[in-house]
């Protein structure tokens, strides 16, 4: 049997109506006071504390959205396929690979990038500068986000735990030995700060 398609669909709840007036009455009564419904492909994100409402294409990666569309340059494309950690951002408190994540699936997420971590005055950034935990600097923001996520869940990590946490971040210049030093120093500073409270 051929399926009948309804003429009008409620954008809030997808209820079907044959007449526009019926839909209108339904919307005004059943959904009174609700915010306007989101069109398809529209997502909401909080990035570094700023709220965004953005129309995205289904094939856009989160990296493409953040880097190319929003102009935050810190999530870097290095390996091109989830093998290097340079595009790492923190999403809902977890470090994720932005090149392997579809933007459209991130609706409602809270995201932190290296820019946001720096602007918040996180001691990691200063510790990275001091310890030269960078050379060409291309992979550095990915390390900063990975390290911040580590410190968020483990405020006093041991060197072994840091090495494990950073195991997925590639640095071709080989700055590796400096990262545990910088991260432990940042952890100490954070501890002091919290202790002062």
């Amino acid at each position, binding site marked *: 049997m051929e399926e009948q398609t309804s003429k009008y669909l409620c954008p809030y709840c997808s209820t079907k109506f044959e007449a526009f007036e019926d839909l209108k009455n339904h919307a005004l009564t059943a959904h009174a006071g609700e915010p306007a419904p989101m069109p398809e492909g529209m997502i909401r994100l909080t990035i570094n504390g700023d709220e965004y409402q953005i129309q995205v294409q289904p094939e856009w990666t989160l990296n493409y959205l953040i880097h190319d569309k929003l102009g935050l*340059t810190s999530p870097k494309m290095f390996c091109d396929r989830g093998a290097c950690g340079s595009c790492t951002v923190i999403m809902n408190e977890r470090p994720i690979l932005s090149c392997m994540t579809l933007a459209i699936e991130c609706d409602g997420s809270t995201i932190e990038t290296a820019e946001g971590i720096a602007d918040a005055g996180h001691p990691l950034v200063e510790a990275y500068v*001091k310890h030269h935990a960078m050379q060409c*600097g291309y992979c550095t923001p990915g390390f*900063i986000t990975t390290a911040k996520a580590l410190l968020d869940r483990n405020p006093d990590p041991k060197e072994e735990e840091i090495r494990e946490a950073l195991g997925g971040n590639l640095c071709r210049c*080989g700055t*590796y030995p400096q990262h545990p030093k910088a991260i432990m120093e940042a952890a100490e500073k954070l501890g002091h700060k919290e202790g002062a409270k």
Partner: protein
Amino acid sequence: MSVQTEYDRMIEMEDNVGFDKYPLKDFDQIGKKDIRRLDGTEKASGRAEYTMDVQLPGMLYLKFLTSPYPHAEIKHMDTSRAEALPGVRGILRYDDPELPDVADLGGHGPTAIAPIPKVAHFEGEPTGAAVVADTEHIADEALRLIQVKWEQRPFLLNVEEALKPDAPLAHPEDFPDGNLEVEHVEGHGDVEKGFKEADRVLEFKATRRLHTYVSPERPCGVVRWNGDYPEFWLKHQRPHENKRAISSWFEHIPMNRIEMHMLYQGATFGGWTQFYWNQGPMYCAAVMAKRTGHPVKYVFDRRGDFYGGSMDEGDYYFKVGFNNDGRILAVEAKGHFANPQWEGFGPGTHFEDNTQIPNLNAPRMVIKVNKGPNTAVRCEHLPNTMAFTLVMDRVAAELGMDPIDVAIKNDGAKGHDMEWLTERKEEADFTPRDSLKECLEKGKAAVGWEDKWHPPGAGKLPNGKMHGIGFTWNHEWDDSCGSGEIAMRLERNDGTVSILGMRCDNGVNAETGYCQIAANELGMRMEDLFYRPHTDTGFFPMCPDSSTNTGVNGWAVRHCARLLKAKILEAATSPRAVTQRGMYPPLFPDMKPEDLDIKDSVIFVKADPSQKLSLADLVGPSAEAGPLSFHELYGAERHPFSVPIFAHSYQAQIGCYAGFRPKFCRQVHFMEVEIDPETGEIEVTHVVNVNDVGKVISPESCAGQQYGGTYMGVGRALFEEVVHDPATGVMLNGNLLDYKIATIEDCQTIDTHLVETQQGYGPYGATGIGEDIATVIPALLGPAVYNAIGEWIYEFPITPERVLKALGKI
């Protein structure tokens, strides 16, 4: 000290023959720890901009068609379906009537090459067409719609096959007579005589498989036309060469109308700048940007970045004659190398540089195969370090001697002993020191050599693994050939100094180093110096930030700072201006420049330091209708005034490329490994680097090259290998999942130590360090593995499979 005297000095020091005749008395900023790196916050916050980040309004993306075959010619190409795809803004074909047969497209200097070839000589070569589209995605889609009729040709993947008499030609267009492009010869003495005289002779063959540089930022560029004038964003190591090549395009573009931007670079490690096709994409982007009226960006994909390798790929054949006391009498080292793009070095040069071995014969064959081009990948000395380490350590092993004793016995240069080398040091005005012995003293203690070195295979650990320890040594090098230009300006208003030079940052913290040298020379506070990240100031430092950073640019900065200081002191003691109303007296009247000095950015009278003036007060304010005019109008001088103060300097030198120049600084390295005899897995547990850098400019930056180079070297030694399918010639692992580079977990402790004998050819007796460690470390795994398992493995990388084979387990 006059300005003319300073210029005379530059000329005098053109090849540093006389070393530094004007040494600095006090090192203040030079060598100081904890100096904040200028690029730190930018890079850590992710705000440092790289060419891959560049986006311009209306920008289009260019992508190349690449050959699916290792050797093939395009017989027919239909681009009509691709052209019809919405979002495609143009396709540049190899047979485009506007495309010249050849254009200057880089290499070592501009080289005439077809911008888009019709014949591919390796799988993945950009060939046939370039598509320009609104997005990368559309460009990819369009490439799939191009129909090509290829005529496949026979291909070659390895050097031994290529040398066979009936081998097909790998590159018949340029090398129609055979696959052997050229054979270089190097050496001295008579090896046959040496072999006869020697107590013992040994022969062996080693192989280094293809590896590559894996630059984090992929090869890329952007071009935009502003009316008739092009503007380029480049990711290259040699912007001066690029600009020279670009100026030859489009029937000559005047140099002064080309604008170039060199942003931060996600590392290059040599490589791309020297490839004959490195500027092809930029050329095509320039054509298409002109044609479409839009900026055009090209970015190679990760796989595309793998089609350029290191020029140590190949087979090495050794024959060594030596005496029972460890003295080596003759070395024959033959290298058969795949696809080197230029002469380079090796495998004999380091025997010349470091030893008194009287007889050396080191021919080097350059052989064409159908894989991507190979070039300097941090760095071109790799064939040398491999040959040197394997020969030295193998001789020690044959004799059951401590390899350190073999090193000391053979240390020298060009077949001469240490006495001869000491004479050369004196000749160059150095105070002679035995660099190798000083390095060894530190290194042996750091690694615990006396306790840890054991007979091969005797280091069984409680965990069932085999402990091994290896040692190698070498000289410290920089390819200090070339010229560098630097300018400095004393800023108005606050008297700070801007160093002007085109950025070419690869991460070695060079810009901070230049500021340290300038601050030290000028007597200024570090915070008053800044390296202007100007895009194209017109002042090109030589290969900035790579081979010749300290060796050439360090000199140029030093000269320039001394000139600037001379000008400052002249300005302080000269009339500030002469107008119709009279003369404005000097700020330090009745003084000569030599009566003054500068410390902490303040000029003071040497005889009475209480008489002083800050540089900020010397320079006065900018413009403001001019403080002098104010005085002329109102009869009172509101602000002090001095002449604009600017200096420009350079350094030119031949370095190590013309003939033999003895090197006096040495480096030693130790590596400890643990090998699981069941799985063949190698764990690098401890590395000790000791580098005599002559004079340290930045201790942290030197250490960065040591541990950083160690990680790169360990990865190369353990697993870096680009694999091609022998049946199809297709690269099989052109990505970072299947081609492994070292992670933080692939090397345990690294101890770094520096020695300063001030016997380098750079300023203050410094020499380079950036290329060395990543180049020396890979072969060091050989003796470390031998010490662990008692078997030599001559095939690099030394994978678990090769270990198990050596142990006879597979």
